[in-house]
């Protein structure tokens, strides 16, 4: 499957592409609100048997009689809007197993959230739900032949009436279970029905994707999985998959972070090995893609890995219009364009915070040790220009002296440096030394604090980089940085050759990171540059990176550098290879080669590789409901019947949009010797109430539950696990992790009930909570009811913030504060992330990272 090799997944700054609603054009939409007529209409439109209508009407009656829950998160906004919710929306399209049959816009939506066309070939089963209807189902023939049923719930009602009648909202989740189940019973639509026959072990996960599109939408899908005796299945609910899109990430520091997280992943344990064997042995063509704009790297990917792509319109001309679409390497042509998103985040800065180590003796805090002093440096053009000078010509000697080395003739710049230092820091004293031999002038500032401040930008020319805060600075300030840098390290090449005049701007550096950061900043300033590297090992020198600006790109750059460039060249308008819009840069493909591989371990590749890709990944989200300001409601229902010795693993990563109330109910009945495994990631939605429950009804049944909840600003994640031990020798484990950030509230609300009959049972519950930001809240309500004495119960919980020691440790090793925090969080959630299939764990990491973005300061 299309897993990229030696690739680093990058995050996208912007959630908007997932939150966008497609133009909504349904075939049938129930009027807002809920009454008997709506329920009858739903049932009629589905041609349901009478018993199902009866069930729906019972549900409706109960719903009308029952009050809203009075515990847990505040649902008042939802209750206010409840009559506006459209309880049933049927898209125009009909269900199909043929991807091409889907209407264009719906197909686009799915491609956006990551079900590329290619997947139907290699995945065993995929179902896709759009609003309330399943539109697309596919099951590999291999499993079909063995009698595995994987279909739409609506179809199952007609096709397998006896089985559905027996299992649908009866013994597992009865329709009177709670308020939102009553609602679900009356308006449920779509969802998945899976039946695994005796002793069939489905090795590849079955997956379903859900998306809500209508404003005031309601999604009420019903999932019913019956694993017959001795069978095994892994079901994944709603999600992106291997189709992790590849695109450019603007901040190399982040890419580096992600790579290190992946290192953590790969360097660890057994999970990796088995999951990887299952997921990532690839046989087929492997493509190597080179492109203009960055000659320092190649991308190596499998043939079906989708990229954001623009077809070339005319062979010799650059495109005039840029409409990116997803495409796969096997269809790539030389000259077509790869797309790199431009970092759009701009922070308004008044000051920039630096932490400067100061000896306590010096600051009067005592006689020993050091403490950190927060230095707020004004974000003014002079400071940025000075940083530019430092990146090019600066150095720090003995830890106390800040030097700038110029050519003797660059008097103007020498004076500018002095003036900048005076303006920004008020430091007037400096020394000048002259080297006759190499015509150098050295300006030295003897100021320990200054030296320590500039060490944030790297000591030693190959370690130079731009401090991350400055990467998001306003454009006018970044122009000053480029100006200073160019004055030091840049040159203007302008020579008349026989073939014509050759003209370009160049900036040279031996720091790879700086070169890439510079390229990104230039993109923000509307300039596409190209990156070359020259290996100078033979000369005994370090590799040199050159950022070049040529063609039409020279005009805007000339304005920054203060060199006027004519708008024509050799009598013609300046041309250029690259495309540029506000959001993207486009790089033409230089070369594509392919080679066939057999059982290629795609993920082991390149983790140790030192390349950082300009072509990184566009994050692909799962279960994403588009943004509306009004409330949306997801009240799904999942019933798992794990029969004797069967095994179901149910994974879900839920990332609904922020206006969604995710009030989902999940329950499993586990019979003798059966195993159920719940893996949950809750990241999106404004308010979640989700407590997957296992009823251990047969001797020796087991339940393992792993959960992660992330409550960002304004979110309320009320999650937990319930286990009811009703038979002897049953065992359960619950591991719950939560992160609360800013005003987010995360709550673990769990229940472990051991009935008198459940002798010799074992329970272990572990909850850990991490608090980030002063206003964050974390609650833990672990209830335990123990009804016999032959049990072994352990519960542990911890709550805390990220330790300053940990942050200090990582920062002292050269990470920025933000990077350090992200790394600690990544470590915190690792046990959960490890349990997910690899592509999901990468995705979860990315989502968390996206949410963690800018959590410092």
């Amino acid at each position, binding site marked *: 499957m299309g897993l990229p090799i030696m690739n680093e997944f990058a995050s996208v700054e912007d959630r908007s592409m997932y939150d966008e609603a497609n133009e909504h054009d349904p075939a049938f939409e129930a009027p807002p609100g809920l009454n008997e007529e709506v329920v009858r209409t739903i049932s009629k439109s589905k041609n349901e048997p009478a018993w199902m209508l009866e069930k729906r009407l019972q549900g409706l009656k109960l719903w009308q009689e029952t009050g809203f829950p009075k515990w847990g998160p505040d649902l008042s906004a939802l209750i206010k809007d409840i009559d506006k919710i459209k309880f049933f929306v049927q898209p125009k399209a009909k269900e199909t197993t043929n991807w091409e049959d889907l209407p264009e816009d719906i197909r686009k939506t799915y491609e956006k959230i990551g079900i590329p066309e290619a997947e139907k070939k290699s995945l065993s089963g995929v179902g896709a739900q759009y609003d309330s209807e399943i539109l697309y189902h596919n099951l590999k023939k291999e499993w079909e032949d063995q009698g595995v049923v994987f279909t739409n719930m609506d179809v199952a009602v007609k096709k397998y009436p006896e089985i559905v009648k027996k299992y649908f909202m009866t013994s597992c989740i009865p329709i009177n279970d709670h308020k939102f189940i009553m609602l679900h019973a009356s308006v449920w639509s779509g969802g998945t029905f899976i039946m695994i026959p005796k002793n069939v072990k489905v090795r590849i996960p079955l997956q379903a994707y859900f998306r809500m599109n209508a404003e005031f939408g309601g999604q009420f899908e019903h999932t019913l999985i019956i694993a017959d005796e001795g069978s095994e299945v892994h079901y994944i609910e709603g999600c992106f998959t291997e189709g992790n899109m590849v695109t450019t990430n603007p901040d190399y520091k982040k890419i580096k972070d992600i790579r290190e997280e992946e290192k953590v992943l790969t360097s660890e344990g057994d999970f990796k090995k088995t999951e990887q064997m299952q997921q990532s042995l690839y046989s087929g063509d492997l493509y190597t893609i080179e492109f203009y704009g960055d000659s320092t790297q190649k991308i190596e990917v499998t043939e079906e890995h989708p990229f954001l792509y623009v077809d070339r319109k005319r062979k010799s001309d650059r495109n005039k219009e840029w409409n990116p679409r997803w495409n796969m390497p096997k269809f790539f042509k030389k000259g077509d364009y790869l797309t790199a998103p431009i970092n759009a985040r701009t922070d308004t800065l008044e000051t920039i915070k630096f932490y400067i180590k100061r000896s306590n003796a010096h600051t009067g805090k005592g006689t020993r040790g050091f403490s950190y002093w927060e230095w707020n440096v004004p974000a003014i053009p002079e400071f940025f220009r000075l940083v530019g000078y430092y990146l090019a010509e600066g150095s720090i000697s003995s830890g106390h002296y800040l030097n700038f080395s110029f050519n003797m003739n660059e008097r103007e710049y020498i004076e500018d440096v002095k003036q900048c230092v005076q303006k920004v820091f008020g430091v007037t004293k400096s020394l000048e030394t002259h080297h006759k031999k190499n015509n150098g002038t050295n300006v030295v500032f003897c100021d320990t604090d200054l030296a320590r401040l500039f060490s944030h930008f790297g000591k030693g020319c190959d370690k130079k980089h731009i401090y991350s805060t400055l990467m998001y600075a306003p454009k006018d300030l970044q122009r000053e940085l480029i100006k200073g840098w160019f004055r030091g390290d840049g040159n203007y090449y302008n020579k008349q050759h026989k073939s014509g005049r050759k003209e370009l701007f160049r900036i040279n550096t031996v720091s790879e990171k700086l070169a890439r950061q510079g390229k990104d900043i230039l993109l923000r300033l509307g300039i596409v540059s190209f990156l070359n590297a020259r290996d100078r090992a033979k000369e005994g020198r370090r590799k040199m990176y050159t950022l070049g600006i040529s063609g039409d790109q020279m005009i805007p750059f000339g304005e920054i550098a203060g060199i006027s460039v004519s708008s024509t060249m050799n009598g013609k308008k300046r041309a250029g290879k690259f495309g540029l819009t506000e959001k993207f840069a486009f790089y033409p493909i230089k070369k594509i080669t392919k080679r066939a591989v057999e059982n290629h371990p795609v993920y082991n590749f390149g983790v140790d590789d030192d390349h950082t890709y300009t072509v990184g990944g566009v994050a692909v989200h799962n279960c994403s409901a588009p943004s509306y300001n009004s409330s949306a409601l997801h009240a799904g229902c999942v019933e798992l019947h794990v029969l004797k010795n069967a095994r179901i693993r149910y994974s879900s990563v839920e990332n609904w949009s922020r206006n969604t109330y995710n009030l989902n109910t999940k329950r499993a009945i586990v019979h003798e010797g059966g195993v159920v495994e719940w893996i949950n990631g809750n990241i999106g939605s404004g308010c979640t109430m989700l407590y997957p429950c296992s009823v251990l009804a047969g001797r020796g049944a087991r339940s393992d539950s792993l959960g992660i909840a992330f409550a960002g600003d304004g979110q309320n994640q009320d999650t937990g696990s319930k286990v009811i031990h009703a038979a002897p020798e049953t065992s359960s484990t619950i591991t719950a992790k939560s992160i609360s950030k800013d005003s987010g509230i995360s709550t673990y609300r769990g229940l472990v009930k051991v009935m008198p009959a459940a002798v010799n049972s074992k329970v272990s519950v572990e909850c850990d909570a991490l*608090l980030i930001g002063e*206003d*964050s809240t*974390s*609650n*833990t309500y672990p209830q*335990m009811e123990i009804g*016999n004495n032959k049990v072994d119960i352990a519960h542990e919980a911890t*709550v*805390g913030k990220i330790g300053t020691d940990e942050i200090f440790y990582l920062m002292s090793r050269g990470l920025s504060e933000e990077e350090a925090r992200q790394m600690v969080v990544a470590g915190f959630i690792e046990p959960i992330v490890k349990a997910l299939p690899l592509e999901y764990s990468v995705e979860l990491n990315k989502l968390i990272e996206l949410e963690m973005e800018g959590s410092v300061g």
Partner: protein
Amino acid sequence: MDVVQEVETTFPDVWEKPSGKEVVVHVQENSDVVLVSPSDGERVTILVDKNVEVVFFEEGSGTYTVDILCKDNANVRYYSKTTTGSAKRFCYLERDASIFWIDATYGTAKVAVTSYLADKGADAEFHSVFLGSGSHTFSVTSKMIHAGSHSTSNMVSRAVMLGKSKGNYEGLIRILPEAKGCDAYQKEDTLLLSPEAHMDATPNLEISNEDVRCSHGVSLGQVDDEKLFYFLSRGIPKKEAVQLIVQGFFDEILDGMQEHGTGIRKDILQVIA
């Protein structure tokens, strides 16, 4: 017992409105043991002055309430035993004040203990033992509410359940947004010695700021097989061995009461004999 009917002090807002009969105990200087014996329907109000160290021993009956106000830097140890009825205890701690509760609950009883750490540096410890036997039903609620910064609390509870007894333990650590730099811990261990005994345990946490260190733990189970084996291999019969283990399990907490725990120990021995 120094009983003063009127004391001029402003009681904090979180103080419950007085109800029923009221006794005010005003402790102005260090005292060894002050006996508190509230009767049914009584509300005892205790005021401990600044810098005063005092030990209380409570033995009450019926339904009663004890409210304690600890002024700055007061240091209180409060031993209690609850065998019947319903006891409600509340302590309000001002700056650097500390309270050390040790409670033994056996019989059918209901206990609710709340420590309100109102100011900087306040410290509260709650240690308790519960013994359920016969058809006793008890319920213990312990709350630590941190409102002051750098306040610390610790809850350690141990329960042994025999016969058809039913127990319910609910612990809560609540850290308010303004209470920075707090440390809070709670631990609840239960030995279930009878197949018909029932125990519910809910150690809750409500944390509203990031600058905290908090943890809680619960364990429920039988007597450790290895410990039992140790005794058996030394020729001690099983029944006696279990008794010794239970005694040891409780002693770690009751030792804190020093000589005041003697009576309680005797009672417990009788029950488990």
